[in-house]
């Protein structure tokens, strides 16, 4: 079959995208054809979401063109795309929580009779669209009261209620139960029959294999393969997604000996509704990685562990059971957590560097009731010297620092309490490669000093390059812990996407 034979509904030609100096997409060409499902797969950070946003008009390509029905177009934003029948269903919902299902579906284009809303007709139409999805939610239910999967269904119903030509779905089944996913697949079949072109992003390779007509693989912002789905096995896809050598970016690994003291034991840890039955042990000097898809519950797990969320299960510190009800308890046990949300939860952006560096350790640095300006200045000196924080002036608000310097400042902040266990959550997100390398070396050095480290990362090379063991999470559970030769991308992807699970079922 010659793919050039027909004009695609929507296509991109030679598209590149840069954010500042960072190029996230290189020369991408992609065709979405009527009545076809085109799956786009790749690791986190491969550029899938950026590409979807270009297709739907939320981003403009730096180079290249978006072509609709053979005509180059420039979309002025998401609403413009929607007006032309291109609908993107986000990973985050775009629904007004306090309105009802029907009010959401008709938001901004309500049907009226004279000056009044035609509620009966809107309700009837909403019902029809929901029925098509086999979704039993009442049209009059408030969106805030719906489950996550029902919200997703409402999003999809909203998309299908429009004159739909191209439907772009970003991990639509991540929050759906298998039954709901099956209903979605039946809907996809109906939409295909109606000639809608569908772009489908998923990490679940079994799903891709089942639903896609064509598969495109992105890696590091480049298109590495685009083939008919029938030609690819799931293992081929995993291999294409990974297929990369580890650069010399990481410090040499020095795993702790088997006799190293176990400083932390977690047994059957759960966070209600998000994480269930996770058990692992951590040794002095060890770097334990946590890999998994976004939403697999890694952040929730460690936030529960350090007391920032309610948890169930047991935590033993050096063999002694500890409660860890809040961050103070964790600090008292010399456990610190570096949040992934450094702007929202890590740093006081409007304050200067010194108060940020000392905030966690203020009662150690200033044991009396009064602040000790000299001790705080010294702490900042230490931060600058040890972690190479670079700022023009010391009295700058932290907001003005680059992401890398903010991250280093946050590192300095938690190291001020001289922790024995350090949990890093996405320690290099949004940071340039040079600073990344510095941070890898800080982490390795912390481990060499005898601290136990946990590193959560969505970048697989990072987890593999840095960590001695890697725990893989999937859907709120520990899918497996990999050691030695098993720590490679193929294995991690197989566990993270559910191709493989370890026989730990009985442990919970």
């Amino acid at each position, binding site marked *: 079959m010659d793919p050039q034979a027909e004009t695609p509904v929507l296509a991109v030609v030679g598209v590149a995208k840069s954010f500042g100096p960072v190029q996230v997409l290189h020369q991408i060409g992609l065709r979405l054809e009527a009545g076809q499902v085109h799956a786009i797969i790749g690791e986190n950070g491969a550029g899938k979401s950026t590409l979807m946003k270009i297709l739907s008009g939320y981003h403009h390509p730096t180079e290249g063109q978006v072509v609709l029905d053979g005509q180059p177009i420039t979309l002025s934003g998401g609403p413009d795309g929607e007006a032309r029948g291109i609908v993107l269903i986000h990973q985050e919902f775009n629904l007004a929580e306090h309105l009802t299902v029907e009010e959401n579906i008709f938001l901004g284009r309500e049907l009226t009779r004279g000056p009044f809303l035609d509620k009966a007709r809107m309700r009837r139409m909403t019902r029809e669209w929901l029925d098509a999805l086999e979704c039993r939610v009442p049209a009059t239910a408030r969106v805030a009261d719906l489950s996550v999967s029902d919200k997703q269904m409402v999003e999809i119903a909203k998309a299908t209620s429009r004159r739909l030509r191209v439907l772009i779905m970003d991990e639509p089944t991540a929050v759906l139960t298998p039954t709901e996913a099956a209903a979605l697949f039946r809907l996809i079949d109906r939409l295909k029959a109606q000639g809608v072109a569908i772009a489908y992003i998923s990490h679940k390779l079994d799903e891709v294999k089942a639903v896609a007509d064509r598969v495109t693989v992105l890696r590091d912002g480049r298109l590495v393969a685009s083939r008919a789905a029938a030609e690819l096995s799931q293992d081929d896809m995993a291999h294409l997604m990974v297929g990369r050598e580890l650069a010399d970016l990481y410090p040499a690994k020095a795993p702790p000996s088997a006799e190293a003291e176990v400083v932390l034991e977690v047994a059957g840890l759960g966070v209600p509704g998000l994480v269930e039955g996770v058990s692992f042990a951590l040794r002095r000097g060890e770097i334990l990685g946590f890999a998994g898809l976004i939403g697999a519950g890694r952040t929730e797990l460690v936030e529960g562990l350090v007391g*920032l969320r309610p948890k169930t299960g047991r935590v033993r510190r050096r063999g002694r059971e500890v409660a860890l009800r*809040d*961050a*103070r308890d*964790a*600090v008292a046990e010399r456990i610190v*957590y570096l*949040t992934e949300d450094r702007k*929202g*939860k*890590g*740093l*006081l*952006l*409007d*304050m200067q560097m010194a*108060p940020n560096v000392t*905030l*966690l350790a*203020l*009662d150690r640095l*200033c044991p009396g*009731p*009064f*602040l000790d300006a000299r001790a705080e200045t010294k702490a900042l000196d230490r931060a600058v010297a040890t972690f190479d924080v670079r700022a023009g002036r010391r009295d700058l608000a932290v907001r003005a620092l680059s992401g890398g310097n903010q991250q280093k400042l946050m590192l300095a*902040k938690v190291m001020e309490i001289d922790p024995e266990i350090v949990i890093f959550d996405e320690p290099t997100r949004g940071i340039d490669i040079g600073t990344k390398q510095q941070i890898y070396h800080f982490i390795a050095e912390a481990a060499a000093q005898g601290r136990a480290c946990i590193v959560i990362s969505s970048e697989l090379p990072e987890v593999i390059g840095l960590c001695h063991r890697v725990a893989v999470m999937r859907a709120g559970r520990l899918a497996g812990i990999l050691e030695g030769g098993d720590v490679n991308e193929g294995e991690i992807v197989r566990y993270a996407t559910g191709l493989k699970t370890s026989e730990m079922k009985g442990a919970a």
Partner: protein
Amino acid sequence: MTAVPQPKPARLPFRLDLRLAAPLIALVALFILGALVNSAFLSTGNLTNVLTRSAFIAIIAVGATFVITAGGLDLSVGAMAAFVSGVMIIAMNWLMREFGAGWGTVVLGMLVGIVVGAAAGLVNGLVITRGRIEAFIVTLGTMGIYRSLVTYLADGGTLSLNTQLRAVYRPVYYEGMLGIPWPLWVLAVVGAVGAMLLYFTRFGRYCFAIGSNEDVARYSAINIDRIKTLTYVLQGVCVAIACLIYVPRLGSASATTGLLWELEAITAVIIGGTALKGGYGRIGGSIIGAVTLALIGNIMNLSNMVSEYLNGAVQGLIIVAAVLLQRSIAARK
């Protein structure tokens, strides 16, 4: 002055912080305006009188600075002032039977006032932090409660201090030291202690941190509930201190005591440059704000341009204008 065109605007030798300077500039402008309106404005008698009367609000505003800096709000301060004054008067009248009409009774009564103020603040703080309820709602509720308690205690009328006690207590408002009335000394001490607490202690730093971003504070192992509760206790103590110098002025308390003081105190804090959304607070600014409000009222009385009955309207306008000004300064940064 000649402006030399430069590729980049030269930085001033010192940075003029508008948030710090604006309240002072406004105060100076008011003095000039007052002097122009009526020559009696600048007389020592008038100014002393105005400043002394502003001391109540200024002291309450010092407490409110902590609450607002830590991201909270206390609408109950006016009602609380009436309640504390009422309880203090009852306590003093009762204690007089035991200890006679002397300073012993007055000092014990003052202690009762401080304890009641602290307790009233503690109630606010605990309900807000333990109950996880918006400060606005909680203090709106306690505002009604404290105010109605006074009405109940006064049986709908007025609580009056025994005349003998009044004679003993009176100098606390009407006399002073070195020509400066006692209320201003009290204000100076409260202001100095407040500034020390806010700028030079861990507690003050935590107030800034919590008001700036409560999540960051929580992730930084700060005991948020305790710090927030403390700010409300501090507010209660400040209200009680204000009552200590208010009661000798009139020697009575009723349901209308301290009416709209919450509006004046919050206005003073905002005029003073403290951010209403929290994270940034100025004790000195709040005091300047309270003085500014008092001067505006005084100038309106002394001039015939605007009816003094519109004083509340002017204060209302000022708080809205101050927030607008704050935002435009913040936007320029």
